């Protein structure tokens, strides 16, 4: 809804008149962090996502966009095996992290999830832990005990999440004393502290005010140096502003999400190759 109001046209047009020729600088030319091959997700036999295939370029931001029900979040959650928790959920096809098949490659889920971090829709810091304990919780889960290592990782992660200066004097305070935007950046720091290769972000700004949203979008651009980001967003402007590659998903006739188009963000928002993509980014539905 907000997408329609805020006029994706604006984004598309400004990019169309942009300085770069999208054909020349395809952000996907560099190394690949993850590869999806015919990925389908079914719940008790009902298909929620069907046959998604694309590569996720390393140290870039890849956005998954599409209307509600198009399977963006379902697809994202298959990338760190969170569906393992859901009875009746099945992921088929192949998902590679580097060269490792994350479902059939024998990699333990705990190891996988420390290599692929996640930030959720609503900030979810551990309510019983202090800010510091939240940041280092992932390291502690992975068996790191040395205080010096934890301290260093906490500072580095909080700095990377642009939160350190705001909270450095109250690291022992409960996480719930932070504002919503700060809590979300704390969750980003918590995920970064484990030094993941990939960071999954599931509509990370949907519960935040515009200023906090802007901060996190700016943060994503900086974070690219450190991790590969895959973000699900409802907000097309966000995808246009912050991502390098965009995958557009749409619900098919049987209710399963399908991949319509994956391309460099500049290209997808200016010259989409599928008419349905154009309809969507122009706000004609969704």
């Amino acid at each position, binding site marked *: 809804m907000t997408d329609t109001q805020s006029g994706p046209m604006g984004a598309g047009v400004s990019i169309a008149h942009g300085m770069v020729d999208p054909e020349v600088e395809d952000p996907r030319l560099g190394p690949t962090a993850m590869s999806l091959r015919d990925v389908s997700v079914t719940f008790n036999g009902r298909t929620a996502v069907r046959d998604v295939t694309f590569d996720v370029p390393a140290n870039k931001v890849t956005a998954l966009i599409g209307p509600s029900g198009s399977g963006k979040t379902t697809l994202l959650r298959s990338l760190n095996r969170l569906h393992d*928790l859901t009875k009746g959920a099945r992921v088929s096809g192949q998902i590679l992290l580097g060269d490792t098949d994350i479902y059939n490659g024998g990699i333990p889920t705990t190891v996988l999830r420390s290599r692929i971090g996640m930030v959720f829709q609503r900030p979810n810091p551990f309510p019983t832990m202090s800010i510091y304990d939240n940041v280092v919780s992932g390291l502690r*889960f992975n068996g790191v005990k040395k205080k010096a290592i934890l301290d260093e990782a906490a500072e580095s992660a909080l700095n990377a999440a642009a939160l350190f200066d705001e909270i450095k004097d109250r690291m022992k305070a409960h996480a719930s004393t932070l504002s919503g935007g700060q809590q979300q950046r704390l969750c980003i720091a918590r995920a970064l502290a484990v030094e993941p290769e990939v960071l999954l972000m599931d509509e990370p700004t949907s519960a935040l005010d515009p200023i906090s949203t802007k901060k996190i979008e700016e943060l994503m651009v900086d974070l690219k140096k450190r991790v590969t980001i895959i973000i699900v967003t409802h907000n097309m402007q966000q995808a246009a502003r912050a991502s390098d590659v965009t995958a557009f998903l749409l619900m098919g006739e049987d209710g399963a999400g399908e991949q319509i188009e994956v391309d460099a963000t500049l290209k997808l928002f200016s010259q989409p190759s599928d008419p349905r993509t154009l309809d969507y980014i122009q706000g004609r539905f969704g």
Partner: protein
Amino acid sequence: MADTSTKSVTASAEHYATTLPEGRNRPSGSVRGPYEWTLIALSVIFGLVSFWFVGTILFKSIPAFKQQGFYLLVGNAWNPTDGTTPSQYGALSMIIGTVETSLIAIVLAGVVGMGTSLAINFLLPARLRTFVATIVELLAAVPSVVYGIWGVLVLAPWVASTFGPWLTALPGGATIFGVSLAGKSLLLAGIVLAVMILPTFVAISREVIGAVPAELIEASLSLGATRWQTLWRTVIPTSRIGLFGATTLALGRAFGETIAVALVAGGVVQMNFHPLAQGTSLASFIAGQWGEAEGSDQVPALYALGVFLMLFSLAFSLIANRLVAKQRKAAAL
């Protein structure tokens, strides 16, 4: 803060007073009708009965405190007068028996109950979950005498013939657990109490654990935590206030339980607190002793046991409330 809120209440009351139709417009607090009087009368009845009850127990126990003094709390013999020596009434062995049986019960029920609650929430499919929860709640409603009789007829012989001797035969077992004589023992009472409070504990802890937001569990797992780590460091800490409440409630039930303990503890007043030794508790001793006490100076002493039981329960719930409030505060900050 308080000032402004009262003001706004008054303001809205005035607003109502002026906007209500004529005739309904009554100056507040001056005239009371049947509505007010009914509620006042009923609550006064409650107040009087409570006062009567607490007052009687305290008043009737006074002779025992006068007669026995401090011995009533720290003494360990319970000997009515035989005409030549004065009566001795000491509650220590009942107090320790109460604490010991309750502790055994809560430890056993706590461990098994936590496992059960976690399994119900995280392992059972949703359809079975409701079914099992209903069964558990039904078990919590079974009258305690039924648990007691099961304890006497089924569990006691097993403890006497198998479990007791096995514990005694463990290295150091005789020193720690003592020797089982007839099967009835503090340990057996603790086990029966555990079975009895288990459904209560599970009924509450299941709900409390079910209320832990899925997003916290996902946050934990997404950081690379194992499922055990997620239980210990996320699920249990997050639900600790509620789990504490479950423990308190279950412990309260064990504390005041009369019949089941009277049936299986042995009813013996002695200073032997090996789990396999026979013993008694405050509540079960009052009930068991009442028949032969009537008309003697034992009656005030039994009232005094009632006072102790009341005071312990009071102290217990005060401490529990304080801890819960403290944790709430800590969680909110």
